[in-house]
């Protein structure tokens, strides 16, 4: 049994025939599409190294069956920079030494992009740390990672807005 699917990967439409329904998005990206930025750390949804954006939302690609995501738009680390211009989160990771060995970095960066778009942290370092807890870093670069996410958040969102305030006003 084969399963034809289409995906938009980093802006490019791709038609793929899966010969086996077991293929995860992570394995599809790495083994079929030569996009090895997303890393296979634990392969069980525990480390976050495989984080990608599906339709703009951060998820663990190791637990996502490719066949079930027919039609989705995928963003990987390879698709973030615009030509030579780094994405603000990439630039912030360089600025703040948000990595050492680099293995977890693509997942950290995609997770940070997703977290900032979710709009729940404001400029609160505690909320950033909590929001990034699904990405493990064995080198322990967490302090730099938090600083990098805060810097990128400020650049991408402008003045701090707390979503909770809006909810409180609605209730009043």
């Amino acid at each position: 049994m084969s399963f034809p699917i289409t995906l938009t990967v980093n802006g490019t439409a791709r038609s793929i025939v899966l010969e086996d329904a077991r293929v995860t998005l992570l394995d599809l990206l790495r083994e079929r599409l030569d996009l090895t930025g997303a890393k296979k750390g634990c392969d069980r949804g525990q480390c976050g190294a495989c984080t990608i954006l599906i339709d703009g939302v951060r998820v663990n690609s190791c637990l996502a069956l490719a066949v079930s995501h027919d039609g989705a738009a995928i963003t990987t680390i390879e698709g973030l920079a615009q030509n030579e211009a780094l994405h603000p989160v990439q630039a912030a990771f360089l600025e703040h030494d948000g990595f050492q060995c680099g293995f977890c970095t693509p997942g950290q960066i995609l997770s940070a992009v997703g977290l900032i778009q979710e709009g729940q942290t404001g400029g609160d370092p505690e909320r950033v740390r909590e929001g990034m807890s699904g990405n493990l870093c064995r080198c322990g670069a967490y302090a730099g990672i938090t600083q990098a996410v805060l810097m990128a958040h400020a650049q991408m969102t402008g003045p701090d807005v707390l979503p909770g305030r809006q909810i409180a006003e609605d209730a009043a």
Partner: protein
Amino acid sequence: MKAFDYLRPSSIAEAVAAAGRPGAAYLAAGTNLVDLMKGGVTRPDTLVDITRLPGLDRIERRANGTTRIGALVRNATLAHDPVIARRYPALAEALLSGASGQLRNAATTAGNVLQRTRCAYFTDTASACNKRDPGTGCDAQGGVTRAHAVLGWSQHCIATHPSDFCVPLAALDAVVEIEGPAGPRSVPLDAFHRLPGDHPERETVLEPGDLVVAVTLPAEAETFAGHSRYLKVRERTSYAFAVVSAAVGLRLDGDRIAEGRIALGSVALKPWRAREAEHLLAGAAPTPEIFARAAEAALADAKPSGDNAYKIELARRIVVRALTLAVAGTPDRVPALPASPFATPSAGVSAHA
């Protein structure tokens, strides 16, 4: 992972028919199922993908005051929905205290309710487990049992149910809506999960082909919004399952408690509603003494299943702490560290009162 057939039905009726066959399993996000399949713990012959079924991804506020949460609503979407956050704040706090940002973005309402135990002997296929392979025994007993059940366990299984979300759902009298071969039916969440007894492999009341289509909160669930908390003790403050958790809600009438709700998490193979404790709260003044008595009552039947007697005292204390924080008022916003007993409640007047 064992090979499987993949089906993508376009209607609920088609899905129910396909999943009624032996060896079939429903697939939503797969955050739990695919993990278990990779480990060989679950070995379905067919996956019935329900992610394209229409109408299951909505949160509906109904005229009769109930709120219906579709089976495919993602955990993160639900937690950040303004209606949910304002009317059922303990539900939002429980959801945000579970898993990671990535997993909450994928995991669904029904998938959370149906998630499997995290007992290490269940997930280790080299260990005997009556839940995974009925009749083979339980290697957890006599093993590493710090996290295991202290209520409702049997000689055949001492595992716990891992969901945070289900704990406030139980406290708020949520109802599970099911479509099945025999038509639709509704089951209170408190009666949805089974205790292990002699058949730990039967985890819920679902029959083959049954599909959870929604979880509904009754109208009175929002009357606890002003004084609700979910507290969760974990071995690290984020991205960890509960050792013990508690969801509480109080409806105050002047200086008395008109009604109180208490449910405990990670103490049994189902979210544990503490009705005797609730009876003690009704009509009482919210004092440390009555909270201590309620906590005693909630754990009156508890007994260790191994090296976990500490969980009984821990559960009592987390009930008292949760009730104490609930009286002070629900925070305006879920704290930065959701459900942490170490986070201080925000100052000021509750937005939920």
